[in-house]
């Protein structure tokens, strides 16, 4: 084991975290299955399929992604393990942090290639092709510890034009499309505007809207109850209201002398668990306007998976609109925990010999993990 030396100047707080009283604004958007598959192939399906033992696939039966705008009023470190900070005050006793985060998540399926593990190592996970956060330490922790490629952005949540509406504006550092000699600057990247919460004076939702399910008090209460009682609601609501999101990300580090080369590549999973889900309210999806400005290379992260509207090509160079198929908000407590390395990819010929790390794999599906100890080779009798 190589110990990590906590810097005396560091302000980072490593996970796991507990976020009570979170407000989540969710916009369900159509994805382009071929693009999701291309994303999987680029970031997850690295190397030889037989050697890694799995293949990530787009979930063709659920061609939707979630654009989530989350306001975390309180972040508390919830870890109980060793913190490796000597006699310093434990992280959880230092105080609370708040942050706002915007990300896109799409479901992907990890399919084990070996018949013997096809059932136990196959799992639905969530890829996050775009994520930005306001708190700089959150960005550092996300990037360096769990492989989420968090960009640090200026995020502003506010009430929209109408009562009980929502507005979000994200600015990221970037260069204008025709960069030329321009300097980097903070530029508008994402804007979300909703109408008021349903029922609204601005007309009825479409009959095909998800809202038609939830306008039934019985169904609405049932789903809220299920969200609290079972993790299985993920299946029940087909991911529309996640209670447990198992995220997967490619954690990779650049070589210092050859930055186009990697010194470490691994798939890392984390669990985001939503509890005490309450206050599920819908926006009328036709009232929602999601606009991504196309500058620098940032839009490629979004463009790779989400279905954009049919703007004229001339306009599409500057901005892309996305029309959600459902939009809602809810309150919840969130636990972010259970970080683990699913699979480490072999590294060849980097600058300096790589650490002798076995190409570890911890691919068991979440449902199988409690049962795992009952299977496999028997322990030797003393």
């Amino acid at each position, binding site marked *: *084991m*190589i*110990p*990590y*030396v906590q*810097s*005396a*100047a*560091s*302000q980072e707080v490593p*996970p796991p975290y507990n976020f009570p009283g979170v407000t989540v604004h969710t916009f369900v958007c159509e994805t382009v299955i071929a693009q999701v598959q291309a994303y999987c192939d680029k*970031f997850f399906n*690295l190397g030889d399929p037989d050697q890694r033992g799995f293949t990530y696939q787009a979930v063709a039966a659920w061609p939707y992604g979630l654009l989530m705008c989350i306001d975390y009023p309180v972040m508390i470190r919830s870890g109980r*393990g*060793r*913190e490796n900070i000597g006699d310093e005050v434990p992280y*959880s*006793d230092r*105080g*609370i*942090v*708040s942050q706002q985060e915007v990300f896109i998540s799409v479901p992907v399926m990890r399919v084990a290639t070996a018949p013997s593990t096809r059932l136990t190592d196959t799992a639905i996970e969530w890829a996050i092709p775009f*994520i930005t956060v306001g708190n*700089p330490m959150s*960005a*550092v922790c996300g990037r*360096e510890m769990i492989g989420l*490629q968090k960009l*640090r952005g200026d995020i502003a949540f506010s009430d929209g034009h109408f009562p009980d509406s929502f507005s979000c504006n994200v600015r990221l*550092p970037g*260069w204008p499309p025709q*960069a030329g*000699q*321009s*300097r*980097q600057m903070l530029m508008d990247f994402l804007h979300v505007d909703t109408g008021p919460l349903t029922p609204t004076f601005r007309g009825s939702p479409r009959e095909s809207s998800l809202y038609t399910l939830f306008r039934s008090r019985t169904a609405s209460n049932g789903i809220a109850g299920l969200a609290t009682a079972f993790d299985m609601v993920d299946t029940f609501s087909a991911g529309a209201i996640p209670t447990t999101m198992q995220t997967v990300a490619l954690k*990779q*580090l*650049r070589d*210092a*002398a050859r*930055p*186009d*080369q*990697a010194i470490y590549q*691994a798939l*890392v999973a984390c669990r985001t668990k939503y509890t005490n889900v309450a206050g599920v309210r819908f926006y009328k999806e036709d009232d929602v306007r999601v606009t991504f400005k196309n500058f*620098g*290379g*940032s839009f*490629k*992260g979004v463009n790779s998976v989400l279905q954009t509207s049919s703007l004229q090509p001339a306009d599409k160079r500057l901005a892309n609109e996305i029309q959600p198929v459902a939009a809602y908000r809810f309150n919840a407590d969130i636990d972010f925990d259970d970080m*683990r*390395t699913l699979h480490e990819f072999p590294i*060849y010929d980097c*600058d*300096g010999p790589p*650490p*002798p*790390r076995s190409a570890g794999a911890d691919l068991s599906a979440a449902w199988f993990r409690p049962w795992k100890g009952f299977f496999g080779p028997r322990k030797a009798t003393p």
Partner: protein
Amino acid sequence: MTAFIESFATQQLLPPWTATDARRFCFVFRMERDLIATYLAKYFNGRFGDCAPAPFRYEPVAGAQFGMVSVTLFPNIMSTNTVEPHPVSGGQIWNKISHNEVYLAFPAIRYAVTPDGLMRDPRLVWIQPAAYANNDTIVFSAREIWGTDMFLATIDRHDTDDFNALHLDVGLIGMKTFDPHAEERLLSVMHVAVDKVLEGGLLPAIEANPELSAFVDLLFKAGMLGGVDAPGGADTEKYPHHVELNNLKQFRDCYDMGAAIYRAIIASQVSHARLRNLVLYDAKAVDLAFMWSDSLREFIETILGNTGPTDPSPPAPHADDHSPQPSCAHIDWQLPQVKLDVALAFSFIADIDFRVLGALHTYGAVEA
């Protein structure tokens, strides 16, 4: 070779890079040998669990110990890396970033250690225990590529009519007092103000503080005082005119946050060209202070050696600056301060080149 998979989030400043017309202010202050030795032992020397020790040993330089707070205003920084494909930007090098940077550094001697335990080949290197920048791209590049322990900070430079003057403040999100109910604030970290130019060259400063002589010699060797007559008439042209930085590049294991998946000593090189507008300041008139809070306490105690504030009030220009609420974008100055006695202060304008020399040692590696 294993290719790094580029994405929209990895548009970084790839080394080597060059900065034109950078303006650097340097403030030299006295440090304690024991604290430097402890720092080097913690971060660079030793076996570290079941890992073999690095084949290097870092020791404080001989004589009196000095460190340097450096403030650099980068109006234009760009990658000169023409080898990498820069695929995200369609082959275009992402460049032209302007930002401000503050770091604290001290010199150390790196010895190569033979298998017999003999120390040989001493080499002067610089260590940066802390660095701050106000640009995300720079911070992510420094941390993730060449291993500088850099933090994203609010860096406010206050304009003055005097070109030679500087008033600059650094703020960082943190806690005044650790408490489970405490809320983060944009806390003041450092304040520096200087405007009194010193006439008469370096000799008066060295005569006033003879212990500075060796440190000034190091600065000449680093090419940071080009254009100034070296004390004793030394021929500065033969000096290498660059600085070697050694950083500890490390990343946590996501499962065990106390363990590292990668840990290496990275050597990089900074050199100055077209050095001009060198200005020496009256060191006694420099107002340089780090601000005391629980978030910064460990850093101040272990690097600066102060166990408490030297002044219960904030710097005079910020006596009335309050941060009304936790999420306020204004720096909260209602903190006690730790004043540093500056021994030497100077500034210059130069073009700065930065390149990574390589990984000197990767911990846990199977040696070839």
